[in-house]
C-alpha cells in the first residue's frame, strides 16, 4: 500500500513539474507581453517594469528564480494588479471554488447513486427508464446550455433565485445544481451497471439465503462492490467539476478560481495564469491520488495489480 502510494505520488509530482515547466516556457515564447497595452508605454518605464518583475534576466535564470520561489510557496506579484500578489488573489478565490465544487459533488453523488440503485433493482421498469433518460439528458445537454436555461426559468421567469452572484445561501442553489446534475448522470449510469453486476454474484445470493432483508442485502453487501466503478470515475469527475466551474462561474458571475483563470488568460497576466494553472494541477492531481488510495482500500484487486 505504501509503495503504491509512493509511486503514484512520485508520478504526480513529475507531472506537476512537467506542467510548470511547459507552461512557463510556452508563456515566455509567445509574442505579446503583459505590458503591451493600448497606452503607449515609454521604453524607460517598460524597462523598469521588466526589471521589477525580473523579466530582463536570461530565461533560465527567470525559470530558476520562479522555481525557487515556488518551493517557498511564493507565486510572485500579479502583472495586472500590481499591488496584489498572486498568493493573495488565489487565497481569495480558492474557497469560493472549493465550496462550489464540493456542493456540486454532493449533488452529483446524492442524485446519481440513488438513481443508479433504483435503476438496478427496478431493472426494466418505468423507474429504470426514467433514470436512464435522465442519464442520457445529463450526458448530452452541456452545462452551458442547462445553466442559462435554469437562469431563464428559475431566476428570470419565476424569480425564485437571483440570476447571478455569490452572497446568500440561495445563490448556491442554481450553480451547484447545474454543475452537479452534469456529473450525476454518468454516476447514475455507472452505479446501475456496477450494481447489476454485483447483484448476480454468489455472495449476494448467500446473503439473501441466510434471510437478510432486501435493504440489508443492497446497502450492506452489494453497494460496496457496486460502487467501485463510481469510485474510479471520481477522479475524472473531480477534474471535470473543477474545470466545469470555468463555465458556471462565468454564467453565474461567481468570483472564483475559474473566472480568475479565464480572465488571467485574456489579460495575459502571466504570473496569475501560471499560479492558477499550478494550483489547479496540484488540486486535480492531489484529489486523483486520494481517489486512487480510496479505490485501493475498497478493492484489493487494484492493490495487487500495482
Amino acid at each position: 500500500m505504501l509503495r503504491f502510494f509512493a509511486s503514484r505520488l512520485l508520478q504526480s509530482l513529475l507531472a506537476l513539474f512537467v506542467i510548470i515547466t511547459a507552461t512557463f516556457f510556452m508563456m515566455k515564447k509567445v509574442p505579446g507581453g503583459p505590458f503591451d497595452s493600448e497606452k503607449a508605454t515609454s521604453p524607460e518605464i517598460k524597462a523598469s517594469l521588466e526589471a521589477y518583475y525580473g523579466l530582463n534576466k536570461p530565461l533560465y535564470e527567470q525559470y530558476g528564480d520562479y522555481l525557487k520561489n515556488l518551493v517557498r510557496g511564493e507565486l510572485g506579484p500579479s502583472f495586472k494588479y500590481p499591488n496584489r500578489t498572486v498568493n493573495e488573489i488565489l487565497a481569495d478565490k480558492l474557497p469560493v471554488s472549493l465550496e462550489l465544487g464540493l456542493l456540486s459533488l454532493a449533488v452529483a453523488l446524492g442524485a446519481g447513486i440513488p438513481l443508479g440503485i433504483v435503476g438496478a433493482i427496478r431493472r426494466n421498469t418505468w423507474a429504470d427508464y426514467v433514470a436512464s433518460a435522465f442519464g442520457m439528458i445529463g450526458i448530452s445537454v452541456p452545462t452551458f446550455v442547462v445553466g442559462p436555461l435554469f437562469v431563464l426559468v428559475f431566476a428570470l421567469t419565476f424569480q425564485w433565485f437571483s440570476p447571478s452572484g455569490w452572497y446568500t445561501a440561495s445563490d448556491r442553489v442554481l450553480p451547484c445544481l447545474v454543475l452537479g446534475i452534469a456529473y450525476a448522470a454518468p454516476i447514475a449510469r455507472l452505479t446501475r451497471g456496477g450494481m447489476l453486476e454485483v447483484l448476480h454474484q454468489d455472495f449476494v445470493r448467500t446473503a439473501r439465503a441466510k434471510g437478510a432483508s432486501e435493504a440489508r442485502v443492497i446497502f450492506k453487501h452489494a453497494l460496496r462492490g457496486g460502487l467501485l466503478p463510481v469510485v474510479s470515475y471520481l477522479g475524472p469527475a473531480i477534474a471535470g467539476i473543477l474545470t466545469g466551474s470555468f463555465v458556471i462561474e462565468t454564467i453565474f458571475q461567481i468570483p472564483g478560481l475559474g473566472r480568475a483563470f479565464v480572465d488571467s488568460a485574456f489579460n495575459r497576466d502571466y504570473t496569475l495564469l501560471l499560479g492558477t494553472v499550478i494550483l489547479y494541477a496540484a488540486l486535480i492531481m492531489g484529489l486523483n491520488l486520494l481517489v486512487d488510495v480510496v479505490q485501493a482500500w475498497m478493492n484489493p484487486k487494484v492493490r495487487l495489480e500495482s
Partner: protein
Amino acid sequence: MPVALPTSEPSAAAEKGSSLWHDAWLRLRKNRLAVFGAASLIVIAVACFLGPLVTPFHYEEQQLDLRASPPMAELVNIYRPEDLSAPFSWSYVARLRVDREFDRTGDAEAAFARLQKGESVTLGTRIYKLAPHRHILGTDTLGRDLFVRILSGGRVSLGVGLAATFVALTIGVVYGAVAGYFGGMLDTVMMRIVDIIYSLPFTIFVILLMVFFGRDIYLLFVAIGAVEWLTMARIVRSQVMATKRMEYVEAARSLGFGSRRIIFRHILPNVLGPVIVYSTLTIPAVMLLEAFLSFLGLGVQPPMSSWGVLIKEGAEKMEDFPWLLIYPGVVFSWTLFSLNFLGDGLRDALDVRSSAD
C-alpha cells in the same frame, strides 16, 4: 470476436466473407434509438452542409432594422416610392402594431389586413409590403438569420468534431498499436508517458494552447485531437496485445512478413470494432470541448459561428430574446444525443465484451 449468426448452412455465411460486419449491421438495425440517432445525424449533417446554399439569407448578412426579430415573424419590406426594386428598410408585423404607425392611415386594422393579404400599404413616403421570406427561427441582435447561422455554425462544430477525432484516431491507433505489438520496455515507457499526460488537467492544457497560440480554428483541431488520443491509444494497445497472440498473426510472422505489414494488414483490421465505437463517442466529446471553449470566448471567433458561439451569444441575450439561446441549445443537444445513441448502439452491435455475454 462476435460469431456468425447460427444458420443452417454455415458455409453460406463464410462465403460472403463479411459476416461480422453484416451481423453487426443487423444488430444495429434492431436498435431503434441507434437508428434514430443515425437518421438524425444524417438530417443534421445534410442540412448544415447543403442548407446554407439554398436559403435566401447568408450567415454574415445583417439586416440591422431587423435586430432580434422573433421566430416566424411576418417580415415587411419598406420601400421608398422612387426605388421599388430594393427595400431600404425592414420591419415585421408585430413591431408595426407596437409602433402604431398604421394608426395614421385612419383604420389600422384594415391596413394590416391589406398588408397580410399581400397588398402594399402606402404611408407618407413609405411603401410597406409583406416580404416573400420569413426568418423561421428569427434573427440575432445584429439582424442575422438565426437558422442560417445555426446551419453554418453546425458546419464548424461538426467539422471540428470530425477533424479532431481523426487526429486523435490517427495518433492513438499508431501509438497504441506500436506499444501493444512490441511490448516489453518500449511498451512500459510509452504507456507511462500516456499515464502522465492522462493525469494532466487537459482542459486547462487546451485553454493554454488557445491563449498562447492565437484562437486559430486549425489549432483547435490539433489541440483537441492532441488530448483526445490517449484513451484511443490505451484501447488499441490492449486489443493489439490480445490479438497478436492469435494463430493467424503467428502464421503471418512465420511467412516472413515485416512488423509494419503485420500490424497494419493483419492486426489493425481486427481491432477496428472498438476503434469505430470509441471514435463515435469521441466526436460528441470533442464537440463539447469546442463549444466549451467557444462559450468562454477562446474557441471559434465571430463573425464565424459555431454552436458554442451561438449558445454564448444566446446566453448573453436570453433575458429579452430567449429563442437565441433555446434553438442553438436544442440543436446542439440533439446532435450530442444522436451521437451518443449511435455510439451506444454501435458498442452493443460491435463490442466484443457485450456480444459475448
